């Protein structure tokens, strides 16, 4: 094996490499809302003094502030400014990073954001690996400045969360740009927008020519009998399985480099198009009237994998494999668990939201009944309440509440809706890796800042009652939920206790008296990883995992579980 020893080489993920490239290129401002698999971009950038990095309250705000990074669904939140940013242009380098999640590892849906680039008429780059992510972000800044346009870089999970050798360079300082007043360009009223609309089309023609001459699109001629047109991580899967084939590797995929494709078809006999998710490249080639082979439509769903490629080439269908992965679960001692336990006990219909607490939907808890998008824990509650009238509660996490929950709460109050919203406040953005947010009073750089007081903002929205309760006090929590849920008032319970991942302190595990155990297994219904059934039907408490939250004691009517 050939080994190369190079200085200044680090093992970086696609997220980190992209961030590094942007830093070296002189990036000044970066904004994001945490979301897997994009969170590490901002976390990496926050380490540099020269970069003003921020966790924004949501992706729309992040977009309007700076270089913006988000997961695929985050771009949906930012669609409004995104669509018109192509009209105004940017004045200085502006990059949008979307990290798509084919295979839905950690998301609520699967969407191919390459389609958004086309709809928004914004150029699109698709790196294949972390080292390319670094290279491409530098090129993206050049394109953005030269063409006065935002540029979208699309990563996918297997690029964002792959680490490889990445060479580190020096930062280049760039001169600060002045803001030049240009009302026809920056104020999008109908007449101005129409003129800019014409500019966009002219820009796309120039961008297509640029794409056709860009080194990001590369023809590799090897075996002329078989060739692949491919982009993103799919290129590496095909290269793995067919290293001797010819390739048109597309890195600059919108506007599509038609001339390169035509050249490739002239040189190679049989051409396959292989791309993950939607037939994005396929459609461009169909428009050119070229004959090629593409994946069976069943492969449009989910991730590609290297071993799929030969079957795709042979025209085969995808065989769905049964998922046998272990289900995730709320951590032992998680403060959300008791809230779900109480809601289940009173048979409430619960509209949910996005975060760790979405796990409250999984069996045996099964106590969260809807999850659609950020903020819907509150807005869905309103619809559900109008339909069912009673025994409905909406739950939302603290970070999600700040993200898009507040407008929904104002809507509830304004439209005189009564009922109960529970803010599951663990004082962090837990699922994505414990990032801070406005209600923590800490910035991404760890500096203290103005703290958003959740109680105050709830009252300001028009809520009648705000109760702050430690959810580890299960009896108090239960009483309060029972009192508020069907009351003729709009109430918010802030169930506040620190996320277990941010808490080192543990209490002693409960004591289990097997002679009192009636083997009803109600204690297992709280789905605590520290409690398991033994082979002889008894209960085992794993003292390493147990945090001593004592919720299981509440579930046991026979006093087989007691405090130590």
């Amino acid at each position, binding site marked *: 094996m050939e*080994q190369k020893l190079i200085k200044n080489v680090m093992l970086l993920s696609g997220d980190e490499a992209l961030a590094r490239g942007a830093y070296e290129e002189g990036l000044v401002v970066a904004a994001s809302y945490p979301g897997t698999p994009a969170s590490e971009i901002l976390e990496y950038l926050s380490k540099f003094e020269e970069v003003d990095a921020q966790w924004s309250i949501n992706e729309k705000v992040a977009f309007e502030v700076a270089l913006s990074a988000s997961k695929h669904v985050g771009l949906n939140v930012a669609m409004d400014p995104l669509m018109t940013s192509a009209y105004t242009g940017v004045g200085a380098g502006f990059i949008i990073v979307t990290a798509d999640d084919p295979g839905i*590892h950690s998301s609520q849906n699967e969407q191919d954001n390459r389609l958004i680039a086309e709809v928004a008429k914004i150029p699109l780059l698709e790196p294949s*690996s972390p080292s390319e992510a670094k290279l491409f972000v530098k090129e993206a800044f050049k394109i953005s400045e030269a063409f006065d346009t935002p540029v979208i870089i699309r990563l996918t999970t297997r690029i964002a*969360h792959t680490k*490889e050798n990445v060479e580190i360079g020096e930062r280049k300082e760039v001169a600060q740009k002045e803001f030049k007043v240009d009302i026809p360009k920056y104020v999008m009223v109908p007449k101005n927008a129409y003129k800019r609309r014409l500019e966009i089309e002219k820009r796309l023609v120039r961008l297509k020519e640029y794409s056709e001459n860009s080194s990001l699109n590369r023809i590799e001629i090897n075996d002329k009998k078989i060739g692949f047109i491919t982009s993103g991580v799919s290129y590496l899967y095909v290269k793995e399985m067919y*290293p001797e084939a010819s390739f048109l590797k597309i890195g600059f995929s919108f506007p599509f480099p038609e001339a390169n494709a035509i050249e490739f078809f002239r040189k190679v006999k049989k051409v396959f198009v292989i791309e993950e998710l939607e037939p994005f490249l396929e459609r461009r080639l169909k428009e050119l009237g070229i004959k090629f082979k593409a994946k069976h439509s069943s492969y449009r769903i989910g991730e590609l994998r290297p071993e799929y490629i030969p079957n795709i080439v042979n025209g085969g269908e995808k065989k769905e494999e049964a998922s046998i992965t*272990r289900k995730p679960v709320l*951590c032992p001692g998680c403060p959300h668990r008791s809230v779900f336990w109480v809601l289940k006990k009173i048979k409430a219909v619960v509209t949910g939201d996005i975060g760790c607490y979405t796990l409250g939907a999984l069996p045996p808890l099964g106590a969260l009944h809807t999850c659609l998008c950020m903020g819907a824990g509150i807005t869905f509650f309103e619809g559900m309440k109008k339909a069912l009238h009673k025994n409905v509660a909406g739950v939302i996490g603290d970070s999600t509440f700040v993200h898009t929950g507040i407008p929904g709460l104002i809507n509830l109050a304004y439209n005189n809706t009564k009922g109960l919203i529970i803010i599951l406040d663990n004082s962090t953005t837990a699922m994505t890796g414990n990032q801070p947010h406005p209600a923590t009073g800490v910035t991404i750089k760890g500096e203290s800042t103005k703290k958003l007081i959740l109680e105050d903002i709830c009252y300001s929205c028009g809520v009648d009652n705000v109760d702050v309760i430690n959810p580890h006090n299960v009896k108090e929590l239960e009483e309060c939920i029972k009192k508020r849920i069907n009351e003729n008032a709009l109430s918010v319970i802030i169930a506040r206790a620190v996320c277990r991942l941010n808490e080192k302190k543990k209490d002693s595990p409960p004591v289990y008296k097997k002679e009192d155990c009636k083997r009803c297994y109600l204690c297992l219904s709280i789905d605590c990883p520290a409690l398991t059934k033994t082979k002889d039907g008894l209960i085992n408490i794993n003292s390493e995992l147990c945090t001593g939250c004592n919720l299981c004691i509440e579930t046991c009517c026979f006093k087989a579980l007691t405090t130590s």
Partner: protein
Amino acid sequence: MNKTDTINILFCGIGGQGVLKASEICASAALFDGFHVKKSEVHGMAQRGGSVESHLRFGTEVFSPLIPKGQADYLVSFYKEEQGRLKDFLNSKSIDLIDYLAKGENLIKDKRYINIFLLGVLSKYLDIKEDSWLKAIEKLLPLKYLEENKKVFAEGRKMVPRPPK
């Protein structure tokens, strides 16, 4: 069909066991030795007790970040039940280190060190210098637990006096 000199290691376990940390140490050690390394995994739900797998590949030039099924050279399992799920990645020449999991669990009192024990075992099979392993351990583990980690790593190495070639 793929490049024959790439070494493919599949790590698996459940959230919180240090699967990703172990593969990170191995990847760094390979990097220190001058190999091209790719390591791929999925984050997000990992800390919540779900299945965790990390694909690590190193060699002269690595293409795919994922190991193709049937091409893992080594399977390192931190949790017995997860190992069965990933047998499709093995072939007749693959080395499954599953037997060392039970040995480690008997030998190592504190379960948090099992990942480093298994790395010690793995290190005897791989063409990566011991110095690079130790450098990676020093770089990636907290100073407070460094001595204990090095001790456990050495215990793991002792388990494999002469790795089968």
